[in-house]
């Protein structure tokens, strides 16, 4: 049990490293809503985004792949991360807002379950991965590209997505290295 607890903390710490790198640019995200509404995305949205970003990086820095993660990322490349709890739709009427939130609720519940599975998979990878020095940046640019593409599919402009993908990767890898 003790072991599980520390793995949970490590996974969460890595997610937080991604979270802090992404938060300044979360305004790019439209959460699949288009530009007709104010976004006001809650912290839960950014957390979901950061979990996916972490899942993309973990196989790169641990050298262990995951088909679950690969499939998830592929799917999320087509369907962006949706809003989480605390969402508001300020430019619609009250009734429209309520209807919209209701129609999203099933989708959000499914997403919540998906993210929970992703967290478990990240913990598993951290537990099973050989304890080696995390690989250097650039040694596996495919994952950096995958993270950039994921950010672009969630609303980031190309060049800023590239910069953010590099920063997130550096930050997660450094955190993992310190935890060694």
């Amino acid at each position, binding site marked *: 049990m003790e072991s599980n607890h520390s793995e949970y903390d490590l996974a969460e710490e890595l997610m937080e490293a991604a979270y802090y790198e992404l938060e*300044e640019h979360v*305004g*790019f995200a439209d959460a699949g809503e288009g530009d007709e509404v*104010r976004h006001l995305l809650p*912290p839960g949205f950014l957390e979901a985004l950061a979990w996916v970003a972490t899942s993309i990086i973990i196989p790169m820095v641990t050298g262990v792949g995951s088909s679950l993660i690969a499939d998830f990322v592929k799917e999320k490349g087509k369907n962006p991360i949706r809003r989480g709890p*605390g969402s508001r739709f300020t430019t619609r009427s009250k009734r429209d807002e309520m209807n919209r939130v209701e129609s999203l609720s099933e989708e959000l519940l499914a997403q919540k379950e998906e993210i929970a599975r992703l967290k478990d998979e990240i913990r598993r990878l951290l537990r099973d991965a050989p304890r080696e020095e995390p690989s250097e940046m650039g040694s596996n640019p495919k994952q950096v590209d995958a993270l950039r593409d994921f950010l672009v599919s969630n*609303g980031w*402009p190309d060049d800023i997505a590239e910069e953010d993908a590099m920063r997130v990767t550096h930050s997660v890898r450094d955190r993992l290295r310190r935890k060694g």
Partner: protein
Amino acid sequence: MRDVGVELRALKQRAIIIMGFEAYKPLKGLVKKKLIERIAGSMPDYEGWEEATSSPSLSYFGELVRSPLSTRDYFQQWMHHVTLGFIDSEQASMKLLYALEQAKDLTTVEKQELLDTFWAERWIIDYRVCGSMRFHLLASLRPGPEELEQESRRVFRQLENDLRQARESSQTLDEWLEGLFPITPRVIYALQIFRQQDSDNSKAMKRMVDEMGADIGTLFGTVCVNILKGEREFFSEYALSGLVEDPTDVRALKRGLSYGYRGRIRYPRFWYEEILKFVERADLAELPAALNAIDVRHAVSIALVNAPVVLPAFLKMPKEGYDSPEDLILTLDDASILDEQGSKAGHEDPPRKSFLRQIVSRLFG
């Protein structure tokens, strides 16, 4: 030793608040003249006013009017221009734009910088007007797609830097509001550039900048409305709203606070660090006073200059029962004078007068 700069800022704040609310109802010529005389007449009487002012925007107006201008003359010029700005912002902006276009020795960038100075010194009313003027200066060069692309990236990075600077350097909430104030016209400027483009990248930047503008507008509006309602310790409640999904989860709470600091435009670094200390102490002590301390006149004047039409409408300010010029002039004075006049008249205040009296009392009483 009194500081002319400080006095001038205080007078501008006072004038903006009074003009801002009075402009909700169009002013007649005579009333406007009296209004200007009344505010200008309330300038403190000491030698500093006769000295030439060192205001950056003065060198420009000095050439236009007469040079050198005393601080008193500068203030009079400012009052006339701002009065026009509140009554007819389009005409006021055309006047200023015309003057800027006559400055043949300045580059477009220098003209935009001068415009920024006028905005910072409260010569222009309404951030949308100022932002459109900024774009007009750019559009007059007839930039091609590549130049627009280059300018859109430059202005986006500049907005990010200015925002970061305001977040990191503000030591009080007043400095925070002042630090955000120069950003709002440039938000409009950037949005107008993005509208000329049709790429996914420009749409993404437009979305981000639009969020910036909405966050700052919400911040200014919320602060102003709460002050005018007589609330004093509202800022922390507003700043934290929607950021804390589960207050018992300290890690999630800290992530939410970080998001409010860097992900949204709610509070600056000093505020974030103070609230983190408060969360870590977890001793249910009272919030530090600095987390709610705001100079009410400064905050309200900023909100009115930034978006003069929205605020009175949002406040549902009564339009009826207030139409004689004498009544209008009365609202210029402080609450005690209003009370005196009200009792002389021997009748109840009409709703709008009563509302204005409350405002004057809260801000100047």
